[in-house]
Each structure stands twice: as C-alpha cells, then as structure tokens.
C-alpha cells in the first residue's frame, strides 16, 4: 500500500511538473507584461506538432526535440510581434478576447496543416522501457525522464530568475513595470525575450507530453484552464508559486483519482462511489483554487509590490 501511495505520488509529481513547465511561461508573461495569454495552450500544441514532425523527419527523438524547441520559440516570438505586442497596454478583457481568437485560429491552422487524425511521437528504445526505482516498483523510464527534466528546468528557471541580470529585470518587472522602463532598460526587447522563453517552455512541455498523450488538435485548450488554476493559486508572476501550485494540483488530482473511489466505496456501492469519486476529483482542483482565493486573494506567493 505504501508502495502504491509512493507510486501515485510520483505520477502526480510528473503531471505537476509538466503543468509547471506550461504555467511557468504563462506566469512569466503575466508577471512582467501584465498579459493574459490564452494562446499559450496553442503554443504548447504547436510545440508538440513540431516535435512530431521533426522526430518523423529526422528519425531521432533527440534531434526532433532539439529542433522543436527553437521552432516553438520562433513561433512564439512571431505571434508576439504580429498580434500580441499591441495588446500589452490594453486591459485584460481585450487580451482574453484577442488570444481567444488566436486559439480558434491555431486549432484550425493545425488541422489544415497536420490533418485531423493527430500524430504520435515514438520513443527511442532507451526511454520506452521501465526501470525499477525501488524493489518491486517498476516505473516507466519516460515518465521518470519527465520528472528529471522537469526538476532540472525548475532549477534552471530558479537560478535564472534569482541569480542573473535578466532574472533581476524579470523580478523587477513583475513588481513595477514602469520603473524598469524608466531605468533605461529596453523593455521591448525584454518582453520579446521573456515571451520567447515562455514559448520555448510551452513547446518543451508539448514535446514531452506528446509521447504520453499523443499530439492532437485542441490538446492545449483543457490543459490551459488547469494552468491558469495553477498560476492563480501560486500567485501571478511567481515562479516559485507556480512550482508549488503545479505540484500541488498534480498530486491532488492524481491522489483524488486514485484513492477517492476506495474511500467512498467503503460506505457506498461501487458504481455510485466510482461516479461520485470521479465528479469529486474533477472538482477538487477548482475547489482548491476557490478556497485559496477566498483565503488569500492574491495567491500563495504573490509578487511583492503588486
């Protein structure tokens, strides 16, 4: 039983780290540019499609992944340049609307280019097996790799934000945007850089999710909602908050799905318990968010000065 709980915790952690990669880009963009970008999910989807195409093309998972990252980043920068740049000064409503329009556009574009059937990313033999992380607990190698990559990225982001000049500007921007501009920093360049970074992270999340969940049109739409939940719980603009909230959401959701049916099953009949547990665990995350917002309206780790 303890082993199963540990395994489910790993499952939750892995989902949480994927969420974190997506949410990190979202929260950075929000923190520094005060921009709600619903199209972030589309960048995730396009990243996954790029990876699928490049993996097929180069016949190598690693090469495909390496090519997909800059492609996703370029697409992000292009989107920022063409459509989003003029939205920074607008209110959130305008941003929500315009990026909602972009979601529709990207979904149809992907269907036009890549077809409606979806694509699969095949894993190299090295990653396709299982490793025994504890005696009697084999775990899929690829999921383990996701956990490792996710933690690595989190560490990298943390160092970037805490220790570099760019990170200092990002933190400063999250607290007081005008002041950073007044200090003579090239705000436009900074915005583009941050947006590119966010897009690359989204593409990374997309290409890592690809082999697990297949590449599909609209794959970003539902994840996006969950990501917003994450960044709102974590506090907008806070990388640390996004990390904590993403892992919290991932673990909570997985644990709910894994153990609620059994818990409810002890006093309900199995089919009712299954149904109720399902509905409850779907709602769990949203209940958590509502709870956090009622108690701490600015999230768990609000950026200072906001």
């Amino acid at each position, binding site marked *: 039983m303890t082993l199963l709980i540990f395994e489910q915790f790993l499952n*939750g952690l892995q*989902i949480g780290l994927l969420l974190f990669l997506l949410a990190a880009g979202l929260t950075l963009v929000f923190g520094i540019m005060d921009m709600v970008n619903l199209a972030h999910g589309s960048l995730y989807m396009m990243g996954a499609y790029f990876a699928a195409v490049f993996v097929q093309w180069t016949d190598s998972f690693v090469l495909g992944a390496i090519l997909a990252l800059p492609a996703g980043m370029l697409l992000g920068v292009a989107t920022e340049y063409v459509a989003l740049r003029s939205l920074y000064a607008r209110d959130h409503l305008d941003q929500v609307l315009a990026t909602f329009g972009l979601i529709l556009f990207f979904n149809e574009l992907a269907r036009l280019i890549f077809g409606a059937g*979806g694509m*699969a990313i095949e894993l190299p033999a090295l990653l396709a097996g*299982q490793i025994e992380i504890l005696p009697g607990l084999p775990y899929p190698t690829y999921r383990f790799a996701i956990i490792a990559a996710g933690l690595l990225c989190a560490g990298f982001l943390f160092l970037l934000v805490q220790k570099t000049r760019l990170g200092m500007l990002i933190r400063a921007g999250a607290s007081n945007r005008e002041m950073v501009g007044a200090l003579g920093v090239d705000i436009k360049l900074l915005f583009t850089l941050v947006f590119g970074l966010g897009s690359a992270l989204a593409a990374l999340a997309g290409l890592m999710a690809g082999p697990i969940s297949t590449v599909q049109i609209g794959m970003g739409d539902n*994840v996006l909602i969950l990501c917003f939940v994450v960044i709102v719980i974590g506090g907008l603009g806070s990388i640390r908050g996004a990390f904590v909230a993403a892992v919290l959401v991932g673990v909570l959701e997985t644990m709910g799905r894994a153990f609620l049916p059994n818990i409810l099953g002890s006093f309900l009949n199995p*089919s009712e318990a*299954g149904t109720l547990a399902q509905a409850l665990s779907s709602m769990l995350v949203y209940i958590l968010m509502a709870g956090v917002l009622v108690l701490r309206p600015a999230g768990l780790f609000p950026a200072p000065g906001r």
Partner: protein
Amino acid sequence: MPSARTAPVTTAISRRVSMLLGAALLASPLALAAMDAAAQPAKKVKIGFVTTLSGPNAAYGQDMKNAVELALDHLGRKMGGIPVEVVYEDDEQKPEVGKQKTEKLLQRDKVDFVAGYIWSNVLLASYKPVVDSNTFLISANAGPSQLAGEQCSPYFFAASWQNDQPHMGVGELLNQKGAKRAYLVAPNYAAGQDGVNGVKTLFKGEVVGQDMTKWPDQLDFSAEISKIRAAKPDGVYVFFPGRWGVQFLTQYAQAGLKKDIPLYSAFTVDAVTLKLQKDVALDTYLAMTWGPDLPFAANQKFVDGFKKKHGDTPTFYASQSYDAINLIASGVAATKGNLKDKAAMRKALEAAKFDSVRGPFKFGNNHFPISNIYQQEVYKTADGGYDLRTINTVLTAHQDLHAPKCKM
C-alpha cells in the same frame, strides 16, 4: 480614434440613406433563399448526413463521408432510378450544434432521410425533431440504450449496434479466455457506464477493480495504470474511443503491463487510431460487430473500393455509414420511390433487403440489428502497416437487452 470634427448635414443624410439601404439588403437573403427553395426539381431523394467534420475527431467524420460517397458511387448515384443528393453537416461534436444542423436539414433542405451521428449525445439531442416530423432517421454509429428501449420510434433505425453489444462481447471473450479476475476502466459518461455494465452482464468472474475516468479531458492515466498493476488481474477491459484509445494503450505499454496482463477492449482500436497505436495494439483482444476481412462479397467490394478510392482501410464508422446508405437505397427501391408512403417505407426498411457488409442483416423489434460479435486482433501487414483481422465469433445473432422495453 478618429479626430473630433463636426459632420456636415449632407453626410448625415447620406448616412441615413445608406442605413436604409443596408436594412433593405438585410432582408434580401430571405428572398433569395426562398427562390432557392422553389428552384428544386421534384424528383430527387435527399439525404441529410450529420457527422463530425471539425475538431479533434474530424478524421472519423471524414471517414464516414468517404464511405457515403463510395456507397453513392456503387449505387450509380441513384436509388430506385431516382437521383440522390446527400447534404453533409458538421455537428462539431456538440449536441446543440448537431440539433440545429439537423433542424436545418429538415426545415430548409427538406430532406427525405437523416443519417449519420457518431456521438450518443448529439444523436439524442437531434432525435426528437426528426422523428416528430415523421422523417426516417438512420444512425450510422451511435446506439444509446434510451433509443433501443423506452424511446424507440418507428422512424428510427440503427445501422450500427446498441452501445452495450460489443462490450458484452468483451465480457464473453473474457470468459472464453478463462479470465477469473478482471479490472474495468472506462470514461465517466453514459457510454462508458453502458460499457462497464455490458461487460458485467456476461462476465462470470470477479471484478477486482473499476475506474471511471474524467471525461472528456483526462490528460493522463498513470493513476489508473498503477492501480491495475497493484490489483494483479487476469485481464483488463478498457473502452476509450478515438484519441483516448491511443493515449491509454500507449501509456499501458509504456508501463510495461501489456506483456503481463492481457488487454481487452471495444471501440478502442480502429483504422484511424491504429495509425498512431501501431505496435502497442498488437496482442490485445478486441470485440466488434464488423471487421474489414469478413468474408462477404459486399464487404470485399466495400473494403477494396474504399482502399482504391480513398487510399485507406475503412473504419467501422465507415462500414456502418456505407450500410446506412444502402439500407435507405433498399427502402427507396422497394417503395418505388414513393417517399410519401411512410408505412410502406417503414416496412421496407424493417425488411432490410440489402447486401450488408456484415453479411445477413436483420433488425430486431426495436430497429437495432441482431448481430454477430467477433473477436478481432491487430496484425502487421506485408507492407509494414497495421490492420484488423477476425479470429472467431464470440456471440451469434445477439440482440441487445433493451429490446423488450421497446413498445411499438
């Protein structure tokens, strides 16, 4: 923002005029639409076909559309000597949209038959306006239990199956393979519930665990797969149509469970998902009412024709669409094109005198087929692709359990 200036009176007047003009223009499509309706030739069989042509599941809608086109080719685009026209509508996989498109087919296009429908919820939403207007409705896929039982109608026919049937086939298949302990996983919606219940009605062993997953947007099945591993069953039954089938099977194989615990499924592997599932679908047990290799002349003609025309193996969705069109053709031929005689048409459709791709085809009292259910498996074709083949017959001339509840 435009600069502030004062408008001369003349422009204000011209604005008024152009506005009136605009209002007049607004009314014009009504008139034009009316001309359009009046311009139709009287002798024509019109069929409305509703399926999903956009969104993540557009591949299935396209497959069905291809099958309809093939059926029309094979019929020489005529039914009983009368030219046929098919109007396709996209339901976007949304019940409300499906219903509106259906009403459009009935009210504006004034179709003689409505067919199609992949999803139970879209069909259920669209059902009432069709049968209320005494128009014949042929489902080419969805077979919800309501329509097989209390809500059955003289105007509704299913060219496919009732939802439970293939799942009951899986239940029997588990018995035949000697499984004593089974674990069931299905999405948490009505068809998933039907599926789990279908397996349970025939499975004689013990159900050691059951998970209903979040529908339609669960990202990941790792929690369920870990529970399966811990429960150590003899067999796992899953029902995940379309993209979800690809996800579940891939993750199941990645977890290394496929070689230890056999996987049984219905609706989860088809020609579209196989392109993505590939190896992970090998060595699994499938149950379905139709397979591309069923040895009937009509089936060979259909599968060969489909491959030739569209370059793909048809899915079961396509086979049922092909049957739906041929069923309509048999009705039109038997009534000699007298589409107004509803009673005669109903009799002709009930007789189902057409060459089905499923071989001998017979409707039960509730207008759902009494059908064989076959065991199938995936194999690698000579050219490196993947296809389905039929192993044996699991259930013979099987009728769904809801038929006794249908009073008509």
